[in-house]
């Protein structure tokens, strides 16, 4: 298995945190992982994307060729029913989409552990709620 994931967002949306979460979850399942950001010079509001590879084998070239999965925080996924409370907050939208898309690829438990390690305690519950809602929406995808 070698899967390339693309996360598209803007500076401040939490795209790089999502990459860290996917990475940590991947190594919990003894998979290899690589990720690199592609971002603009602005701290807030500029493009901030991440290209992730998760693989069972050693990853030689970490440069993404074609993407298998896209998590796009810039536009709405019409196949998913997303609650308004998650749509308003890009960080929560990210968690929702990780639940809906990545939880099919990596174990839910690994992702929850990774979220715990990457999100401050204050926002943990909020994030897990979004993640769980995403998992539920993912299984009932249109």
């Amino acid at each position, binding site marked *: 298995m070698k899967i390339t994931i693309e996360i598209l967002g803007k500076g401040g949306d939490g795209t790089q945190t999502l990459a*860290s979460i996917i990475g*940590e979850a991947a190594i919990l399942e003894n998979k290899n992982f690589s990720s*690199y950001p592609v971002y603009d*010079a602005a701290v807030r509001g500029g493009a901030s994307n991440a290209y992730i590879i998760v693989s069972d084998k050693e990853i030689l*070239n*970490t*440069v*993404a*060729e074609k993407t298998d999965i896209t998590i796009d925080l810039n536009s709405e996924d019409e196949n998913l029913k997303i609650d308004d409370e998650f749509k308003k907050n890009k960080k929560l939208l990210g968690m929702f989409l990780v639940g809906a898309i990545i939880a099919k690829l990596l174990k839910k438990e690994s992702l929850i552990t990774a979220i715990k390690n990457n999100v401050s305690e204050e926002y943990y519950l909020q994030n897990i709620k979004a993640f769980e809602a995403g998992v539920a929406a993912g299984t009932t995808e249109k």
Partner: protein
Amino acid sequence: MEKPRINPGGWKTVNIKEFLEKLGIKNIKNIILSGNEAIALGALAAGCRFYAGYPITPSSEIPQKMAEYLPLLNGEFFQPEDEIAAMGMTNAASACGIKSMTATSGPGFSLKQEEIDWTINNELPVVIIDAMRIGPSTGQPTKPASADINCIINGRHGDGGNCVIVLSPTSVKECFTLTVEAFNLSERFRTPVIIALDGFLSHLSQNIDLPEEITVFDRIYKEKGSPFGLDGNIASFVPIGHGKGVSYGGLIHDECGNRISFNAEIAEKTIEHFIKKQKSIIPAIIKEQNKWYNLWEEYETDDCEYLIAAYGATAKAAQESVMNLRKRGIKIGCLTLKMLWPLDDKIFKRFRYAQKIIVAELNTGQLVKYLYEYFPKLLVASFNKWRGEPIKTSELENFCKNIIQEQKCKNLAMMTSPSIISLTKEISPKNEGAETYVFKNEILEEAPIELKGKYSFCPGCGHQSFSGIFLRAAKDAGLTTKNTVIIAGIGCGGIVGTTFRADVIKTSHGRTLNYARAIKMLRPDLNVIVISGDGDLVNIGGNHLLHTAREKFPITIFCLDNKNYGMTGGQPSATTPSGSKTSIFFQLKNLFYNGLKIIGLIPSHSHPLDLKKLFYNGLDVEFFATTTMIGLNEIIKKAITKSKNGFSFVQVLSNCTTYFAKKNPELVSKEILERYCGIWERENENND
């Protein structure tokens, strides 16, 4: 930090697990690191205990990690005012015997070049990281490239300026391993090692296993021998601050460290030393092969008809292309260059039979030009990309396919052998017309500082008087050969310190305070005395001066203020009084200010800096004095005592009898000069 113990040097092993536990890192297997983080950990594991750096994308996580971890290891971290200061401090720490590193990106690297040349001339081991990004100037700051290869290898002035080692990691894991190797190489060969880091790797995160154990080389320290190499040999190291009277500087010097500015043979010998040293590095590594990491990795090369040569992150695309092309039955191999400079025919000669050499680079083709020396140009195809994006395997693979299809060149029967410079001429060392001080590598008896050589200043020069008065006052103030380091700059004022028998660092122009600060940080037990002129300290070194005063560093500065640039012919400096005559004739010019036409002088020379107001009133320094030679003795003693508590600055009004004083006798009369004199100190505000 306590006085560093001098160890005899050589190889030792470091257990990584035990070492990282000191930093609070428990796991060494399957951990996620970015290239920048791996570099910081590699540096610390290799023994780096000093880091000075200025923040710049994409290298910024390196200083962040160094600032976090160095205090845990009793090391020092400093973020100075600019890139030049960072490089100077890194040099100074190395002169103290401490492994040091700095990191930057292209724009910062350009600024550091002057100081790196100084490092090469003094054969100091330091490691410099250049995380490369695309474009000239600011370019696209977040977009990766390998675009600084030319400037890293050959960007410094003067022959011998390319006596450096350049490494290029290909993965996050190698960011760790090659940083360790960078320190080992710099310590082993006493030369700066620059890591040409693909900007892509800076921010690439990967899960990696760190090695259980690494081997680390510490620079060789012997009780006997000269401090600098000769004839390509690596000398044993002599640190600053151990009372040995060693002198480091930017001028051409003999093996004893004597400054030689007027001797053709020594000039020739020194340049040849650097070239021979550079040429000896690869043969030495090959000889000690079991000690070194594989710096020229070959992949599927045994029967290859085609070869891809690559470095940096591109090497992984090359390996993957080889893997894919082999499946199609194409006999292709890959040579990964992890050391980009120096190069040697020993690495390339076995590939000279290849049908085609494809050189893949993330730039417009920089290293390939150096490879033409080893391969006939017709056999080389260059794959390049300059879009601020890393190279995809498919891109390189397709290029290779096309090249192989188009390959119509026959293997040239006549191979031109590469032109390797051979230096066989024997030179008998002569030291005529030079300083006569013979460096004995003995700890000097703890004694007052004395003159070691003579220098003829112009008749009546104030600097000559200062020198005598300073040595007497320094003796009274308790300065000895063991507890003092003298930092000298460039220009007439910079000469004074280099005539003393003491540990002396003569820096590049304007950079004295960077070396002074680093030494004070690492060796607070030492008296750090800066002696230089107004042009050196206030003009070109103005930024460093301002910030050293702001930081209230406990050092003493003697600014021999002769109101002009004496050594270069009397040009005006920042302290030249308004309206005075200098060697630059000002034309009255029409200036426009706020829309009004006014007539005046060129503004940069018409408003001298009032140092007392700037430092004492503006920056709250501990001690400030302006003085002529009268009363200087007492002021020197006081300044040295006061510098124990903070920044101490003495403006010594010293007459330039050849230029300024001669042209402006009315401005240097006793009465006029005394108007400026005074002592301003924090506890005693009466004089203010």
